[in-house]
């Protein structure tokens, strides 16, 4: 462990490349917590945005025109506005409307933390795209296949769960893949409301240590690794869901 730290100290002394995160425990911890926050934020937003996508796509097939129009409005709103403004909107506009609550130390604090607003904002942002992505997948499921399920006694919900969704998922995966990659990258915006994710941690470090160039490289490499891991998992999933003989 120490040898790693020593090597990076030497690297700084000999070449002027200052990667404090590898030898300064404080910066190291900040950085790790930043990665942890980014991963956690991404994972929660991915899960929630997929739930929103599935439910939204289901509602878009509903009989109620009002429900359908509500979902359509939601999609338009989140797809046609910049995610940073959405985040500000939730954090500053909606957040300030909520009454303050007293925390365990007796202080007056907002009832919803900044990270929660980030989760809400990004989940709805990516969810809007997921609704469209899943809907396209659902529309690609042949009417005749659904009819076959109906003829076997499946209700609309059961056919949706056991036939339509599994098939729609397969069609949707490439587009979903793109959107989730985008979502992970979008989490950096939460820097703007002070969520201590990866970019925030890096900025904290470089503003103290003045190693902007080094931390920029670290940031880029970190995101390549995180997004690469996500793509790997998605590709695995895609392969596992492959339908032999269909090439999908």
């Amino acid at each position, binding site marked *: 462990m120490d040898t790693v730290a020593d090597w990076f100290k030497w690297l700084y002394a000999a070449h002027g490349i200052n990667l404090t995160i590898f030898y300064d425990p404080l910066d190291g911890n900040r950085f790790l917590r930043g990665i942890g926050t980014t991963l956690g934020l991404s994972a929660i937003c991915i899960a929630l945005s997929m739930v929103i996508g599935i439910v939204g796509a289901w509602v878009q097939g509903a009989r109620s025109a009002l429900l359908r129009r509500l979902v359509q409005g939601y999609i338009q709103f989140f797809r046609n506005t910049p995610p940073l403004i959405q985040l500000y909107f939730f954090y500053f506009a909606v957040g300030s409307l909520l009454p303050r609550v007293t925390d365990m130390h007796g202080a007056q604090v907002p009832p919803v933390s900044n990270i929660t607003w980030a989760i809400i904002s990004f989940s709805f942002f990516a969810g809007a795209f997921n609704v469209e992505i899943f809907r396209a997948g659902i529309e690609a499921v*042949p009417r*005749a*296949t659904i*009819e*076959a*399920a*109906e*003829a*076997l*006694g*499946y*209700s609309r919900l*059961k056919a949706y769960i*056991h*036939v339509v969704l*599994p*098939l729609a998922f*397969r069609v949707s995966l490439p587009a979903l893949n793109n959107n989730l990659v985008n979502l992970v990258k979008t989490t950096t915006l939460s820097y703007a409301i002070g969520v201590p994710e990866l970019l925030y941690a890096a900025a904290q470090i470089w503003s103290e240590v003045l190693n902007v160039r080094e931390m920029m490289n670290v940031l880029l490499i970190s995101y390549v690794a995180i997004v690469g891991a996500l793509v790997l998992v998605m590709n695995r999933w895609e392969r596992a*869901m492959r*339908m*032999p*003989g*269909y090439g999908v």
Partner: protein
Amino acid sequence: MAWTPDQPIIRIADVHKSFGPIEVLKGVTFDVRKGEVICVIGPSGSGKSTLLRCVNALVPIERGSILVEGQEVNDPKLDKLALRRKVGMVFQQYNLFPHKTALQNVMMAPIHVLKQDRNEVEARAIALLRKVRLAEKAAAYPGELSGGQQQRVAIARSLAMNPDVMLFDEVTAALDPETVKEVLVAIRELAAEGMTCMIVTHEMGFARELAHHIYFTDRGVIVEHGPPTDFFACPRDPRTKEFLSQIL
């Protein structure tokens, strides 16, 4: 009045059905008795598929009555599940679930819809696949099967629900001549076991051999019907004569 097996299992009375301005069924009336095999023949677009689809409530009818084991299909309070347990349907395009193996295709509905025990269903599904001579293809996906094999899986899938009546809608129309036979063999065996069958077909030889009664439809009405020997030997209506002369 409760239905008893000595009454017709299906009673179709004065059924009318339109799609928009086009009246597809213009008052169709006939009965099917238990254990009877009836064949419906007629030119393309005469409403044969529509008639079958009305029987298991895949399309609603506007006027008339369809009783299946005494249960009115044209009833807003119809229990569709109860109806579809009694009525199995096999389609021209097989419509298997492409993301499931042949065995899973057969097992799905009894497990999802009837909530039957998985082990018991699996044993029955294997027996059904053996019956349609596909035991060795249990683990194959639909995309890996020939048309004739897929159609036999579709028959097994339908039989897994233990229906009292089977509807076949031009089940060999999409197959090449060699594979037509293997599907017809499966249906012939089913008929020999006493299954009530409503068969829409263009296979006149098959209809002549298997049917107890033949119905000829044209433009939404039944033009002529009778036992196959009479029907083919001395058709009375000029439209029947013309149709038979074209097809034989």
